[in-house]
């Protein structure tokens, strides 16, 4: 069922069993998981069914620290959320991502990979991927020519990926609109969360839109599923009862903002042609070179991978941090697409042979949890009267050292195997240089602002994604990640959301 909140009489009250705030990958996955329960699901979406500048403007904010992208350019504010522009890269987190690592401050989730595995299988279906299989040996039987580089398996392994640009807005609109139990309200932006007197339970949400309507939403359970930045913003701006915002007794909300650093770091030149499709990005499952748990432990580094891209192509690309700046969303993407096409044309002209021998290696690495990397409220307000956000993106020496070491490890192994030689980019050559290039790129993966930890002093939500101290308020999505892992977040955030969904079913049904 679909209701446009602009068409409701002003000051309407919307009621249901469960209320999900945000219709992106997390929110839609949970809503669909509840569709057969007979319970009334309220799904609130701030936007409509397509991109609108006026709505997107609500996501604008400012940023300091390490250069970042325009904040309204990295997320989408309409039904389907940021799946409307994602690249569809999926791979589960590794066991080590969940563990406490002495060399990674504030690491260690209160749940393990094993806890998440059953929900990864469900997430895999929601994202319409292939089987939940990420072992190289499985895919080598399915697809020809996935030959792995002969690198020491004690140091380097092949982390498999699957790809599907699942646009949730297209995939699930019909099912949700036709559902009798899911009540989708578009143009319903949450501007305030109201709790009971002792702030132990949410009573209602206040929603607004540009039509000047204000409504109230009541439910037994509430789930914030609007992305890591917006979820933190909603908690921080709900400060009419507690000055520091809801769930923020210990000043953790908004802190530990993490990204995936995706940076061109080196070149790998193969001594001889190595026929393989394993590292090719062609829409089929492929691998990135990952560092084993043992090698991470020995070198005290973060988890990360290196992906291979033909140098004949990559060298012509304009840094994303440069080309995807600017205010106009469509113009930014047009420029980006044009750049990709032009690089492809230039690569063709060079005719680098039938088998590529020179590759650019791009690191993809978790960002170390860092309380100084954070979201706060700005003094400026948006059109609905909600304070905008300010991002201070802060990277650490551990991030830089890990990137350098990952490249060095692969470079050494390539030499040992007589596979090829590696050339490090300028910014990685001096061991004492902890600075970052201006075009340091991030994957638009916002994580950690409502991190999971069973200790309220160290986390915003507990192991069940419930906000500490508020028994019917939960957070879904990558904001709950304690650490950010090497893999892109969508598969894991959907799995974690479905785990939350399961937990709430047991609680309510």
């Amino acid at each position: 069922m679909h209701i446009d909140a602009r068409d409701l009489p002003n000051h309407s009250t919307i009621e249901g069993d469960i209320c999900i705030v945000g219709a992106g990958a997390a929110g839609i996955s949970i809503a669909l998981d509840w569709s057969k329960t007979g319970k009334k699901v309220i799904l609130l979406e701030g936007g409509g069914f397509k991109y609108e500048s006026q709505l997107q403007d609500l996501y604008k904010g400012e940023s300091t620290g390490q250069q970042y992208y325009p904040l309204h350019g990295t997320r989408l504010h309409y039904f389907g959320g940021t799946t409307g522009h994602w690249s569809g890269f999926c791979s589960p987190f590794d066991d080590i991502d969940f563990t406490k690592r002495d060399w990674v401050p504030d690491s260690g989730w209160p749940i393990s990979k094993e806890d998440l595995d059953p929900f990864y299988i469900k997430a895999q279906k929601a994202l319409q991927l292939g089987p939940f299989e990420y072992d190289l040996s499985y895919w080598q039987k399915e697809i020809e020519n996935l030959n792995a580089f002969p690198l020491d398996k004690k140091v380097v392994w092949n982390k498999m990926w699957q790809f599907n640009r699942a646009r949730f807005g297209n995939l699930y609109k019909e099912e949700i609109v036709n559902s009798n139990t899911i009540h989708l309200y578009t143009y319903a932006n949450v501007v305030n969360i109201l709790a009971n007197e002792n702030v132990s339970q949410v009573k209602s949400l206040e929603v607004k839109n540009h039509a000047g309507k204000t409504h109230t939403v009541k439910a037994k359970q509430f789930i914030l599923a609007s992305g890591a930045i917006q979820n933190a913003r909603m908690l921080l701006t709900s400060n009419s009862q507690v000055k520091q915002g809801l769930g923020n007794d210990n000043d953790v909300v908004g802190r530990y903002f993490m990204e995936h650093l995706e940076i061109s770091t080196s070149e790998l030149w193969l001594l001889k042609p190595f026929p393989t499709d394993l590292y090719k990005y062609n829409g089929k499952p492929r691998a990135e070179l990952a560092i084993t748990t043992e090698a991470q432990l020995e070198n005290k580094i973060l988890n990360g991978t290196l992906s291979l891209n033909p140098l004949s192509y990559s060298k012509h690309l304009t840094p994303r941090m440069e080309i995807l700046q600017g205010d106009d969303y469509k113009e930014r993407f047009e420029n980006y697409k044009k750049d990709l096409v032009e690089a492809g044309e230039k690569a063709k002209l060079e005719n680098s042979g039938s088998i590529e021998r020179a590759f650019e290696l791009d690191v993809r690495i978790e960002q170390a949890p860092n309380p100084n990397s954070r979201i706060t409220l700005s003094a400026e307000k948006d059109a609905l009267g909600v304070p905008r956000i300010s991002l201070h993106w802060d990277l650490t020496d551990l991030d830089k050292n890990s990137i350098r070491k990952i490249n060095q490890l692969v470079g050494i192994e390539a030499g040992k195997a007589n596979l090829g030689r590696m050339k490090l980019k300028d910014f990685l050559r001096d061991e004492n240089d902890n600075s970052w290039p201006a075009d340091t790129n991030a994957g638009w993966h916002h994580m950690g602002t409502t991190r999971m930890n069973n200790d309220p002093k160290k986390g915003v939500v507990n192991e069940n994604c419930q906000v500490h101290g508020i028994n019917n308020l939960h957070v879904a999505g990558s904001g709950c990640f304690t650490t950010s892992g090497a893999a892109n977040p969508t598969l894991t955030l959907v799995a974690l959301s479905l785990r939350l969904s399961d937990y709430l079913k047991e609680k309510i049904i």
Partner: protein
Amino acid sequence: MKRRDFIIGTASIAAISIPSVYFYLNHDDTYDPLIAEPQSLSLIWDTDAIIAIGVAYLRQFPDENSEQILVDKLVNNILGNQKAGKLNNQVRKDFETGNTVLIDGWMLSKTEARQCALLTTKLKKQHAY
């Protein structure tokens, strides 16, 4: 990789083979001239690129800026004949033991980097370059 591309670091692989080093070298050597040919690197670089690395190596390790010193360091620990061939094993061993150097960003075995330097020194002596 040709010298121009090597310097800007953005080339695709062109026809790659090291023009015979013998062409440049005298015939009165007291050592096997193949010692001055880094075999693996010659698969990805041309002579000019190898010399560029040799120059950078000598800038980084000025104490080794002597043909004799480089030859000694390259073959001193290698027993028996066919020392040049055995250097390939030494290159691999360097990577295994961490005996590597970073020259202009390239992660190289110390042995192969010295081979580049030896070729450079040799050619400089002969005023070939």
